[in-house]
């Protein structure tokens, strides 16, 4: 019995990068915020490079709470959609050239806690899908800046999953 040889690394990488890029391009608001996603295997880190338009309080100056909330929400949705489509993507059931974007989960509730003020520098976020059901999913997400052990905001969200 012969085993299928493993795929060349370039093939694997380009498939995953194309799928991620397509997912992110499907949300214009991510471009407006200026956020992007770093990928290591299936692990995503959302990155929000600092830009003066993200400032809320010019006196401190601190990131706008709304920009922080939006960044966390984007990180949560992309993680949920990405991990949901991972299997289909790996098995070649998603056409990266398709005209339509995959349907995204819809936010039902979003609760954000502000732990310290956001500094005028880059921010990072990682989300964890705590529960994924057929209809509903729950995601937790945490954002930090200089120090991973000192998050400046965290959020918990419930999503309605797209119809299969």
């Amino acid at each position, binding site marked *: 019995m012969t085993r299928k040889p493993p795929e060349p690394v370039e093939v694997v990488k380009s498939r995953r990068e194309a799928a991620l890029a397509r997912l992110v391009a499907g949300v214009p608001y991510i471009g407006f915020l200026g956020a992007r996603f770093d990928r290591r295997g299936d692990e995503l880190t959302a990155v929000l490079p600092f830009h003066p338009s993200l400032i809320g309080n010019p006196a401190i100056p601190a990131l706008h709470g709304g*920009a922080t*909330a939006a*960044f966390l929400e984007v990180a949560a949705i992309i993680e949920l959609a990405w991990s949901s489509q991972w299997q289909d993507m790996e098995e070649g059931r998603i056409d990266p050239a398709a005209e339509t974007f995959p349907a995204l989960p819809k936010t039902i509730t979003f609760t*954000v806690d502000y732990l310290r003020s956001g500094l005028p520098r880059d921010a990072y976020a990682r989300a964890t899908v705590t529960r994924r059901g057929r209809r509903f999913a729950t995601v937790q997400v945490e954002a930090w800046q200089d120090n991973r052990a000192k998050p400046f905001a965290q959020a918990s969200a419930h999503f309605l999953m797209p119809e299969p």
Partner: protein
Amino acid sequence: MSDRVTQAQAVMQSLPHAQSLGMIVAEMSAGQATITMPYDPRLIGDPATGVLHGGAISALMDTASGAAVMCHPSAPAATATLDLRIDYMRPATPGQAITARAVCHHVTRTVAFVRVTATDADESRPVAMGTGTFTLERPPA
């Protein structure tokens, strides 16, 4: 009092992120604020439907809530969001501006409590509702 509101209104209108989202302070009075955000294709969350991203609506609701705190009669020197919970009841109708109305209904020495509602043109059916707590910095005595 009205000087304070005018001042708070000018501050809210000058926030860089609020400006970049196109927010317009429609009304501010004692402990209440109404802020509008025009529809903008850059803020779309789902291109298939043109519906705005929840993040943009969260930012609007957070801003309106902070504004309501700033013009509370207790005259806070500054405020920052502690937490904000938002329930999204329905997608905002594409093409329509979103208006957030926030009421700072209670303050303690250190914390302000806010309720906020976001609507599109159909004001009878809110798009989202939220409750938040904000820090309250008292002016130096």
